[in-house]
């Protein structure tokens, strides 16, 4: 088990390095850099001054030199400073990470809860209106992009109730009401996306489990329907759903970028958006590293969860 985790961490580190390298290069290949974008509309700056400014950020050095400099910095524990604010990137990250994690986790919890509930209901009452409504809802949820959903909800609420969400962020500890008013719609939009696919997968997985021979055997020994459903069928059905949750998380992460920007939530998503727009390379790199690590950790946790749920995987060795 320890060996397995070690192997995964090692592979993950390689993956992280490759991703970082790729983004490092790609960003610099995109036209425009920090200085040119900032000075786009400025009129009183001469070419020489612009060049000097660029040099001060190290933007005129060859690609490999920039890479070397950055890596040298990393080796000493310095990940660089934001071009924009000149603050160390780690500091910026530290204040943004909790916000996104909160939003993401809330969305995930909501989605898993609703998805499982609808999936189980749909499987139990197959063919009923609940089932039909769930399936249609799922297709809608999957087809409509999360930002469209969010905007639709926003538009509806503002027009119907003459209400708009606050645009200044208050942490949940200070004022829960204001917090939820601001993050409510993004959370719902993110959750809707995931609920749809979780519900579909849960439904089909549960249907299969409920008609399996082992579930029939539980009934034959006198088990109640509740036990059949929640102890046996659900556990057997959960394995493909676990995989799905791991995959869906990628969507959530991507979703935070646009939604945070739209709703002015100061999280990593918004940070990434801003950083890319302004070509704030140090910030971009560090945001990338963050997303990459989250992905790797989540997939590792999902694989470990399999081993917890399914003893066959435990015996054969996780990952075999």
């Amino acid at each position, binding site marked *: 088990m320890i060996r397995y985790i070690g192997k995964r961490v090692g592979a993950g580190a390689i993956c992280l390095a490759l991703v970082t390298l790729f983004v490092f290069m790609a960003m610099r290949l995109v036209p425009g850099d920090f200085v040119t974008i900032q000075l786009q509309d400025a009129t009183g700056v001469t070419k020489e001054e612009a060049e000097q400014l660029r040099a001060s950020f190290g933007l005129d050095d060859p690609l490999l030199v920039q890479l070397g400099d950055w890596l040298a910095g990393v080796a000493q524990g310095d990940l660089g400073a934001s071009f924009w604010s000149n603050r160390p990137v780690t500091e910026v990250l530290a204040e943004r990470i909790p916000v996104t994690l909160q939003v993401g986790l809330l969305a995930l919890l909501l989605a898993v809860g609703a998805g499982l509930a609808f999936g189980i209901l749909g499987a139990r009452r197959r063919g009923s209106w609940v089932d039909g409504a769930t399936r249609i809802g799922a297709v809608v949820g999957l087809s409509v992009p999360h930002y469209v959903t969010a905007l639709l909800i926003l538009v509806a609420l503002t027009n119907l109730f003459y209400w708009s969400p606050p645009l200044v962020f208050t942490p949940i500890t200070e004022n829960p009401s204001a917090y939820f008013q601001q993050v409510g719609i993004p959370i719902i939009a993110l959750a809707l996306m995931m609920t749809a696919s979780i519900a579909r997968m849960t439904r089909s997985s549960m249907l299969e489990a409920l008609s399996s*021979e*082992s579930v029939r*055997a539980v*009934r*034959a020994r*006198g088990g109640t*329907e509740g036990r059949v459903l929640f102890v046996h069928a659900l*556990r057997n059905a959960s394995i493909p759903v676990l995989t799905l949750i791991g995959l869906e998380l990628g969507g959530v992460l991507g979703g935070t970028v646009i939604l945070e920007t739209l709703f002015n939530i100061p999280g990593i998503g918004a940070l990434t958006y801003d950083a890319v727009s302004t070509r704030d390379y140090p910030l971009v790199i560090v945001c990338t590293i963050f997303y990459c690590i989250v992905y790797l950790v989540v997939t590792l946790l999902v694989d470990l969860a399999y081993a917890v749920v399914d*003893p066959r995987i435990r015996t054969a060795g996780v990952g075999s």
Partner: protein
Amino acid sequence: MTRERASTPTRPAPDSSPVWIRQMMESAMPIARMDQVTEPRTVGRDRGDELLEVTDLRVAFPRDDQRVDVLHGVSFAISAGETVAIVGESGSGKSVMALSLLGLLGSGRCTRGSIRFDGRDLTSLGGRELRRIRGRDISMIFQDPLAALDPLFTVGFQIGEALRFGGTPASEVRRRTVELLRQVGMPDPERKRKAYPHELSGGQRQRVVIAIAVACAPKLVVADEPTTALDATVEEQILELLRTIQRESGTSLLIITHDMSVVARIADRVVVMYAGTIVEEGRVEDVLDDPRHPYTQALIAAVPRGDMNRHQPVPTIDGSLPSVWDRPPGCGFAPRCPYATDQCRAEAPPAFPLGGGRESRCWLEATETAASAMERQA
């Protein structure tokens, strides 16, 4: 088996039953059979105190907005302590018969008839009452032990479930579980209790399934093809286990199988099914020695035996087994029967009693006069 179409149906001279059958029954359980000799068991449906009595049972399944009958009026009975085998091929309805006893038909429904068990009609019971009977009074052994056990839980947990559903107090469960495992011949029962199904061999898994079935000492155990998924030598062990359990606890056993040799080795009475009806029933020795229904004869003859001349073809009948869904009027076997007449094709034959608990559902029996029928009985 010659296939002459006579104008009136005539019975061919009864084939002397293959020697193997007598030998098998003799070698199967010599000691136990001696017990039976001292306690003659009256077999027949005339007694009112059978453990299980199925009367004119019809079961239908939904198909494209219609209900299609899968069992067409099945009637038989099992006494306490008896082993009855239901034998048939695909489409005979034997598995549906077994599942209907436990109320596990899924989308199927009993549209007519009754299943009287211990004085109550199972077809009229609600979910909750059926649940109390399952595992406690009637239990089931499934065909594929790997599929019948939940792969995510230990075998001890699943046996424990059976015990707890049956009312065993929690403090007793662990001890009883180990005891049951020992009773079904599982080596090292304490450790095996914590094993998962995929860690055991096929025979061991089936022993666990049997342990679950007998956990609460039910009055009737229904075994659906209990040895089909097992190797021949393991099959022998499992059949021996079932025989022992049946002998020691006096439980009745209903075995569903397609294999006549299993019938010969373990059953007291046999019921032959084809296309959703019972075509013949009676004591195993009688039916295997002198099969009356043409289908029973064909089924027995279809397995090549040692005393067969290898250069002759195996006796067989043309055609395929009927689909459960479309069934012709009249006798279900008529399309393939070498002795079928117009009457057979038009009208389903009733069950003709042949004495000694024997019955055959075939118009051939109608041509026997009462006198020759009595002669046969003697």
